[in-house]
């Protein structure tokens, strides 16, 4: 229940860190996601989009072992809410068994943009991996 850390109201916390990199918010879901946390996450993320004026959101779900209809609907709604706020959401790193199960369930996350992994998702949001600087790096020996 930390009332600081950028959440405007501080009334709820989803316990998932949301980092800001430029105009992109980066976050990830853990392997256990209960219904309340999923709802709190969507709410906190939309508040952060507005507060941080984010243009993009990357949600890494590579640790999420189960997506049932509740979580799927939650991701679709979150994407819709973000879009209304002018931000583009990319859900990255879905596990293959989760993808297979979702399609068999009849939930194909319509309207939700996806990427194979977080790196690809960040690239889609305009982040290009810069070559490592050869000089001036604090560590990383030349060998």
């Amino acid at each position: 229940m930390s009332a600081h850390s950028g959440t405007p109201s501080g009334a709820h916390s989803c316990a998932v860190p949301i980092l800001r990199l430029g105009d992109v918010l980066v976050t990830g879901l853990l392997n256990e996601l209960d219904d309340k946390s999923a709802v709190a996450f969507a709410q906190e993320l939309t508040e952060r989009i507005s507060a941080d004026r984010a243009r993009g959101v990357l949600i890494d779900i590579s640790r999420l072992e189960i997506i049932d209809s509740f979580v799927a609907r939650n991701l679709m709604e979150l994407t819709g809410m973000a879009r209304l706020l002018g931000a583009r959401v990319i859900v990255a790193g879905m596990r293959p068994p989760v993808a297979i199960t979702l399609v068999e369930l009849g939930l194909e996350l319509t309207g939700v943009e996806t990427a194979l992994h977080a790196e690809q998702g960040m690239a889609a949001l305009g982040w290009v991996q810069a070559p490592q600087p050869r000089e001036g790096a604090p560590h990383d020996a030349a060998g």
Partner: protein
Amino acid sequence: MTPLADGNRTVHGPATGRADTPGAEPVRLSLTTEDDLLAVRHAVRFAAVAAGFSIIDQTRVITAASELARNAYIHGGGGDLVVGSVHEGARTGLRLTISDRGPGIPDVEAALADGYSTGVGLGHGLGGARRLMDEFEVRSTPGEGTTVITTRWRR
């Protein structure tokens, strides 16, 4: 929650039988709060791993259990779920039995049809869960509740 006391386990498990393996005994969980849903996922995962299911089949069965369990406690006024392994000849499978105390499903066939989302109790979104399992039986009595018995066989 209580019918499966520890004392029963030693009685049921024949010395050479498969009941000795972890997860072979049916486990009963009540479905009355949201926390029960996480307990269901844990129990079903444990049973699916113990039954030797592939990671994809584990995911299918856990997801089906999650769907049915949620329906039972949100729309069906609570209930319970039993998960256990089943053996038929050379086949091994996992069976889920979910019961709710809801109003029952007036038209089971309609509830199983795709796009049927106004069902009550376990009738809510049954079609999706059925596609994840091999066998799927719905027993419903108006005014008393609904029971879903569903099995997936190990490939």
